[in-house]
């Protein structure tokens, strides 16, 4: 590092004498001027590059609050480097100094209290840093982008980008590999590229590109080597080369994506975000729900049949833990109970209970949480050990998943009516206070909105809930899967909520969490249920044991849904539907029911018990997302066919050089020489010797004796015969030697003589030559000649390169034309002198 640095960086020359000796052009000026502006310009370029690429992190981190500390860190580190360089410090010393400054600025920004004099790290600083890193790790694991810019995450970002400044500087200045500094910039951009659905974004790309070009230009301009070569190095040829390179790269970027089909399935479909837990079995279902809804094809198809007269909401998990940053499921592993065959609610329910039996087939859906209708009383037919939580009734397993499970759920939901709800005014007793907890930093807009919306409802919890639901379902809000992503509030934290209430656009996660938080703010216990909205009829029917036959429904990832459940004493948890155009609003939760419409749409046709609360209109659920109705994987035939076709294509691809080589040889040797030379038109040349000659040349080049265009046939022939590839003349391979000689003579005669004398058939002679070549070649050469014949490869390479050569020739012609035009124009124009 130190040895190379003296040569290329004026900044790193301690005395300025070395550049003086190396630059005879301006030694005196340099000796007095020292490194000049180079370190400062370079520091500026590196800062621009790092901060520019840092721009793309907006969207990974929410908002812009994190950018200020980042600017501070990057600028401090790069200015330290520049100052040390300007003071002609040893390069190693400069790098060490930058590390020190990075530590100082990070301490000052993040751990001021735990340090000496505000910026000198102490042992306390390290524990604080440990806390920050732990916090960042938790955020990374539990949240989805954009994450809230908490201190941990911002610390990690600042530290990483500060280190990046040092790395880029080390690459560009002492190691004099400025082009390699692009790797560091790319490293930053990989994060948004994999996490953000809209990838890096224009601002980040432009910032990074400008910074990178600045670094390159700076090192080109200031490096002493370049200055020495300035006469020759910056000529027109260089400009043309760079133009051609850039143009070619641009053309490739635009053409190649047209040829490569977009990949819509697989681990990382286009626009997908990196999730280590797959798509539908996330640790935090809230995070993955948006991804599921956005997935273009519905995966994780679940079918179910129920005795309930209406399509059911399948409920996987409840999310009740709200720590102010995010909603998360509270596993409460301590109080979970084993055995799903008997499930009891932890609270008392008064009044009627609606029973239903539901048969569920989970298919490919994979999750630790079991989707079941609310409220499950017992689940039969499960494999593995499953536990349930008496508070939330979520059924989960730590050792198996729902994959390929078929089970029957007996559920018993309290019969909820508007009247009962209206009367349920008692304060909640039998549930934990957790469901009422509201974080202290609740944004004002949430509380204000909740208060203003529920103001007309008086003191009745039910009326308040209806008012909130009505407000969220009003025309002011729109359902959109993309708006949160585009506006950067795709998540479920508190600030997200505030953004959502401002923009008034989002999907079920936002609606349900908004209603849940507002309900808690108004004193109603709430939680969010995650699962599936009622799906579509498949048209088939399933017989349930002892219950008769029921229509089958299907749901998949696109039906993923979240809805709030509010607790009313005496009735238990009651689901609401604040999301417009999704799901089915329960009867009790419709506006008209407040007026005292107590009758429910009872359908006693074949239910075994009193009717369940049914929807006002079981309309087909409007579909969201792409209308791809068929779910993949149901019919295995296309997959098998595709796999078979793929294998066939692969085999064909691997065999194609050999096959086309054989075909070419056949075609060449199939031309028989003409025997009767009498009735030939004058000037007729028999093509057979020429084709045989071409075959001989290709054969030789397959076995390692390629012909060159500037050698005569005779010369090539003698070279082939004297090479080791054909063996020794006069020995075993004498026939081959004679064949080569006679093929050469035939070709010469055909090409150069006055009359083409009828030749013998070439095929046997070629076969003799080929046999001899094969016998004398090592197995590797033989293998290559069989499967990847160089002659064929060269042809294909030529064919592939033809468009590029044409473009190059065209560009050259245009360039020359422009130059000539300019010259003639400047000749016509009056000279200034």
């Amino acid at each position, binding site marked *: 590092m130190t040895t190379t640095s003296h040569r290329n960086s004026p900044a790193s020359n301690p005395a300025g004498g070395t550049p003086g000796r190396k630059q005879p052009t301006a030694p005196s000026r340099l000796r007095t001027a020292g490194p000049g502006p180079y370190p400062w310009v370079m520091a500026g370029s590196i800062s621009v590059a790092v901060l520019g690429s840092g721009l793309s992190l907006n969207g990974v981190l929410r908002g812009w609050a994190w950018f200020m500390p980042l600017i501070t860190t990057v600028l401090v580190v790069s200015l330290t480097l520049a100052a040390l360089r300007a003071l002609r410090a040893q390069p190693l010393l400069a790098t060490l100094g930058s590390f020190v400054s990075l530590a100082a600025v990070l301490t000052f920004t993040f751990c001021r209290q735990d340090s000496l004099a505000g910026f000198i790290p102490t042992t306390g600083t390290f524990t604080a840093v440990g806390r920050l890193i732990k916090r960042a790790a938790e955020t990374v694991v539990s949240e989805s982008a954009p994450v809230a810019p908490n201190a941990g995450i911002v610390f990690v970002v600042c530290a990483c980008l500060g280190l990046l400044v040092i790395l880029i500087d080390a690459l560009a200045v002492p190691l004099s590999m400025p082009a390699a500094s692009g790797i560091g910039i790319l490293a930053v951009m990989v994060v948004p590229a994999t996490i953000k659905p809209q990838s890096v974004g224009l601002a980040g790309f432009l910032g990074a590109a400008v910074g990178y070009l600045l670094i390159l230009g700076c090192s080109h301009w200031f490096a002493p080597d370049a200055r020495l070569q300035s006469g020759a190095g910056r000529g027109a040829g260089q400009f043309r080369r760079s133009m051609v390179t850039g143009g070619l790269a641009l053309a490739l970027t635009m053409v190649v994506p047209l040829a490569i089909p977009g990949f819509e399935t697989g681990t990382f479909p286009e626009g997908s975000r990196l999730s280590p837990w797959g798509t539908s079995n996330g640790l935090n279902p809230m995070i993955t729900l948006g991804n599921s809804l956005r997935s273009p094809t519905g995966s994780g198809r679940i079918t179910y049949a129920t005795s309930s007269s209406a399509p059911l909401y399948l409920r996987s998990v409840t999310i009740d833990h709200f720590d102010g940053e995010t909603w998360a499921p509270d596993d409460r592993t301590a109080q979970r109970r084993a055995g799903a065959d008997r499930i009891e609610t932890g609270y008392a329910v008064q009044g009627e209970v609606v029973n239903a039996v539901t048969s569920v087939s989970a298919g490919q859906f994979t999750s630790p949480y079991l989707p079941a209708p609310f409220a499950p009383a017992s689940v039969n037919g499960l494999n593995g050990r499953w536990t349930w939580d008496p508070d939330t009734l979520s059924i989960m397993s730590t050792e198996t998943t729902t994959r390929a499970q078929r089970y029957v759920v007996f559920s018993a939901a309290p019969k909820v009516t508007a009247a009962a709800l209206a009367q349920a005014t008692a304060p909640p007793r039998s549930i934990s206070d957790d469901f009422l907890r509201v974080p202290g930093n609740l944004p004002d807009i949430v509380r204000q909105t909740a208060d203003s919306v529920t103001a007309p409802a008086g003191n009745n919890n039910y009326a308040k809930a209806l008012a909130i639901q009505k407000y969220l379902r009003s025309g002011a809000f729109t359902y959109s899967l993309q708006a949160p992503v585009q506006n950067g509030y795709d998540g479920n934290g508190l600030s997200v909520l505030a953004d959502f209430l401002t923009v008034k656009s989002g999907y079920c996660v936002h609606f349900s969490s908004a209603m849940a938080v507002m309900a808690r703010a108004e004193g109603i216990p709430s939680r969010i249920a995650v699962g599936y909205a009622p799906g579509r009829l498949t048209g088939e029917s399933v017989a349930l044991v002892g219950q008769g036959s029921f229509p089958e429904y299907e749901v998949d990832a696109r039906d993923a849904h979240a809805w709030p459940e509010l607790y009313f004493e005496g009735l238990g948890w009651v689901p609401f539907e604040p999301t417009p155009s999704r799901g089915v609003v329960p009867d009790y939760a419709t506006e008209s029911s407040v007026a005292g419409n107590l009758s429910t749409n009872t359908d006693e046709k074949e239910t075994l018990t009193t009717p369940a609360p049914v929807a006002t209109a079981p309309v087909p659920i409007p579909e969201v997302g792409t209308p791809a109705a068929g779910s993949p994987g149901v019919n295995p035939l296309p997959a098998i066919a595709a796999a078979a076709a793929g294998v066939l294509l692969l085999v064909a691809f691997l065999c194609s050089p050999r096959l086309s080589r054989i075909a*070419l040889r056949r*075609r*060449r040797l199939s*031309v028989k020489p003409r025997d009767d030379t009498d009735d030939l038109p004058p000037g007729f040349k028999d*093509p057979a010797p*020429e*084709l045989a000659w*071409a075959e001989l*040349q*290709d054969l030789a*080049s397959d076995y390692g004796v390629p*012909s*060159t*265009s*500037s*050698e*005569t*046939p*005779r*010369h090539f022939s003698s070279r082939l015969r004297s090479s080791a590839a054909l063996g020794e003349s006069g020995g075993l391979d004498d026939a081959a030697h004679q064949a080569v000689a006679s093929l050469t003579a035939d070709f*010469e*005669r055909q*090409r*150069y*003589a*006055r009359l083409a004398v009828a030749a013998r058939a070439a095929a046997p002679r070629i076969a003799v030559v080929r046999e001899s070549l094969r016998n004398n070649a090592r197995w590797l050469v033989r293998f290559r000649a069989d499967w990847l014949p160089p*002659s064929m490869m*060269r*042809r294909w390479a*030529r*064919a592939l390169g033809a468009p590029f050569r044409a473009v190059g020739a065209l560009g050259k012609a245009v360039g020359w034309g422009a130059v000539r035009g300019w010259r003639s124009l400047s000749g016509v124009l009056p000279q200034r002198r």
Partner: protein
Amino acid sequence: MSGTAKVWVVWNGQAASTGGAAAKAEGHSMESKRQVTVESSPLQGEAYSSLPRDGAGLNGAGLNGHRPQVLDQDRFHDASERILGSINKVIDGKADAAKLALTVLLAQGHLLLEDVPGVGKTLLAKTLARTVDCTVSRIQFTPDLLPSDVTGVSIYNQSSRQFEFRPGAVFANIVIGDEINRASAKTQSALLECMEEHQVTVDGHSYQLGLPFMVVATQNPIEMEGTYPLPEAQRDRFMARISMGYPDKEAEIEMLETHQATSPLAQVTPVVTASDVAAMIATVQQVHVSTAIKEYTVAIGRATRDSARLRLGASPRSLLQLLRAAKATAALDGRDFVLPDDVVDVAESVLAHRIILDRKAASSGDTPQSVLRGILASLPVAQDPPGAWRRDRHAV
């Protein structure tokens, strides 16, 4: 072919004039009183009459209006082997030079032998001349040699009261110009017309030269004392230039053994007649040159003109001579068609003395030979490179 063509060709010892109007005249000795020495047996006197300028008797015409017979391959091969064998008996270890000299003779060109003194330039020229049974004259070029000594002069004959043309030394089948670069430019250029047009013009009369006609000039390298470099125009008229080079060790020892007592030239006897040579020349002219070869030759010429390392490329005349030399090479190889190899074989000898290096190339150590070798090594022989699809087009 005009019937009135009067071409006088005199062979060593016997007249071979077959033209109807041929008449033997008194022999004019070519012995000059001054520098011109004609070494061969004195010419039988013959009067050179002026020739109508219809070009008859030269192009394609053989001896005295009769088209020489084209030899078949065996006889051609036989004759060429005899000539080469005879030369090789005299000059040891210079088979290439001998073959090239014969090539130039058969291609109706002129040969420039350039090397340091004493390596056998003159010996080669003389041997070639003696092998063929034809008239030979030798001109020793010196600074005071006059053009009229070369071409001839009209002298007033008092008895007949008219001017008579006394032919110069150039009137022979093979003219050996020894140390040609020692003569003044004026005299050197007197050879120009003779060499290019095979005729001499004196006092407004043109006199046709015989067939075969070949100038074999020797010269010392121009750095030697008292030399006038040949102008480019004259160098361009020589078909080929050969550097003899020193013989190798065995050849030199053998030379010392055999040539001590007697001159090797004494044993040389003519092995072919001039008519044989004319027939061989006619045979060479019949050699077929395909379009591909013509394209290749032109490509070589253009490459020399386009080369950045050359100031002066090959002239069209040089390409013509290159092709003629290639034809002779092909014929000597027993073929009736030219191969690219023939062109490549003679290209260096034919072109190297005509092209002029760029100053930068010369200072960087290039020689005309090396530049030519580079051009030949990079120039595609066939216009379609191997591996192109074009070649297989007519296969289907």
